[in-house]
């Protein structure tokens, strides 16, 4: 296959018999072996398992298995999983020393669904430890480099997934987004990433960071691929108590019909997002192109935008400190040597197993939840969360979608923000409000600045990913930013 092929191109080549899944999978494994030692986008590659899955897919495609007639479009197409999704038989680390040797006794629902759709798993991608970070510098397994400029970060926390797709090591990868962890790395690496509506994709077997915010989604070369991968990942799951039980025809039909076309949309531009330095010029070209496609623009206001970062870091910290209390050195994960007491076992196992940023978030969350502070922090943040959600509801009464920059700037230099957590947190300014409101949002390439990709973010009402995918897919028919490759 030509390098940088899309999921759909690979699917067609497999369907026509031009290539076998074993050939395509081997090509990608070879690329990973050659290029990834420098990029560091994978934590674990299981070549033997990938080739075995590819062989099975070839048999299925050839109609030589009982299930042959059901071979769907993703049969034999290689992908990668963020190392936060549990995989039976292959370790799942969440980028942490705590889980460096952890092999889950079950598959995440997303892994099961994509396997059932026929996808081949190339490996598990690098990430910020427990998905806490905006630069992929917090991984126990080392920082990931941005293929566009190896001195810069790929974004985080799904930085390995984004860098792997951007450098052609995999046509697509799964990711998770708690406060921007799919969209921000997609923007920094020049690819398309979708955070679905909260509840759209099952969280079962997705290692928990902040349970009321975490959501899995696809990182792909373009919006059509994102729609295709989403259609295989999404769906009701009785094993996730917050899974949404709904049926959407457009989603069921993406594989056959592609992402839905959009009628001319009324697009809101939240003024609070454009008031920040350096984002004004972002508007010019994308607005012009979308206007030529028949869309109209109107200024809107999301007045509680500035409260989103503090609100998010209280809620995410509180949920993280609670979720991560399960790592106690008793049932799974890292255990310290020669514990002298149960207390010693807990404290040393956790102190050795967690990295600096994870400890910072646990301490922040513990503070926000501690006696005397609960009302002032956690409860206050939950009230602000409602105000932020209301802001979105109010604007969607008069516009179809919102358009913003995905990030305040392009990818920053590695090491630039590691000593200043609060400055690092500000990177999430444009992505956390949507997460707090549970809404879907997509990031897609919309230009370059000094040779580094820029991402545009579109935000829709709950469960209207069709508008986001349709708009981005349409934009990608008249622009070629998504076709640019690092090193071109």
């Amino acid at each position: 296959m030509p390098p940088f092929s899309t999921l759909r191109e690979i699917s067609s080549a497999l369907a026509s018999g031009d290539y076998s899944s074993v050939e395509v999978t081997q090509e990608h494994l070879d690329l990973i072996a050659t290029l990834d030692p420098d990029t560091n986008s994978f934590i674990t590659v299981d070549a033997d398992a990938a080739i075995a899955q590819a062989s099975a897919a070839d048999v299925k495609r050839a109609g030589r298995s009982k299930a042959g007639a059901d071979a769907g479009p993703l049969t034999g197409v290689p992908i990668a999983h963020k190392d936060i999704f549990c995989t039976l038989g292959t370790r799942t680390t969440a980028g942490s020393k705590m889980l460096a040797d952890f092999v889950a006794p079950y598959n995440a629902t997303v892994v099961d669904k994509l396997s059932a759709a026929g996808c081949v798993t190339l490996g598990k991608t690098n990430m910020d430890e427990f998905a806490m970070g905006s630069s992929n510098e917090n991984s126990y397994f080392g920082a990931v480099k941005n293929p566009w400029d190896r001195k810069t970060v790929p974004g985080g926390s799904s930085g390995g997934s984004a860098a792997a797709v951007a450098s052609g090591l995999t046509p697509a990868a799964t990711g998770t987004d708690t406060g921007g962890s799919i969209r921000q790395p997609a923007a920094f690496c020049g690819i398309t990433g979708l955070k679905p509506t909260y509840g759209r994709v099952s969280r079962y077997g997705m290692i928990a960071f902040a349970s009321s915010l975490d959501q899995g989604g696809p990182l792909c070369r373009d919006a059509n691929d994102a729609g295709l991968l989403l259609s295989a990942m999404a769906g009701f799951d009785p094993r996730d108590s917050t899974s949404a039980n709904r049926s959407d025809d457009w989603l069921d039909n993406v594989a056959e019909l592609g992402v839905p076309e959009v009628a001319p949309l009324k697009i809101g531009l939240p003024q609070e997002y454009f008031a920040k330095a350096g984002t004004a010029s972002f508007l010019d070209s994308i607005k012009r192109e979308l206007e030529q496609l028949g869309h109209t623009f109107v200024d809107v206001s999301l007045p509680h935008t500035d409260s989103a970062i503090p609100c998010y870091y209280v809620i995410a910290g509180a949920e993280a400190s609670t979720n991560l209390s399960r790592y106690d050195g008793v049932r799974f994960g890292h255990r310290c040597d020669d514990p002298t007491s149960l207390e010693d076992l807990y404290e040393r196992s956790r102190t050795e197993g967690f990295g600096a940023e994870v400890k910072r978030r646990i301490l922040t969350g513990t503070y926000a939840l501690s006696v005397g502070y609960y009302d002032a922090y956690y409860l206050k943040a939950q009230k602000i969360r409602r105000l932020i959600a209301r802001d979105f509801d109010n604007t969607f009464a008069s516009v179809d979608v919102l358009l913003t920059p995905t990030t305040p700037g392009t990818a920053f230099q590695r090491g630039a923000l590691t000593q200043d957590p609060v400055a690092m947190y500000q990177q999430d300014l444009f992505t956390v409000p949507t997460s707090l409101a549970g809404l879907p949002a997509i990031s897609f390439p919309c230009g370059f600045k000094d040779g580094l990709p820029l991402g545009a973010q579109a935000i829709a009402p709950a469960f209207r990913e069709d508008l986001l995918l349709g708009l981005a897919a349409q934009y990608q028919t008249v622009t070629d930013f998504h076709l640019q490759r690092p090193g071109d």
Partner: protein
Amino acid sequence: MTEEINIQHLARLARLNLDTEATEHARSDLKNIVTMINAMQAVDTEGITPMAHPLDAAQRLRADVVSEEVDPEKFQAGAPETAQGYYLVPRVVE
């Protein structure tokens, strides 16, 4: 909320050991983070109901019937130390 943050108390609640240097780092980081999150206090939230779940969905309940079979051997395979189906920890009762 401007008083000194008791880092050792928080670390104890979170079951983390912080040495002197780590404590100083944590104190400085937490101070900056708490200053940042204190910006929330300026927002008027009078009469606003806290939002625990995005989209205000309610917890779904299921019938109280067995839905999973737990295989202890499989689930304990990754445990640091087990014996006869139990997890082993240092002696708790003297």
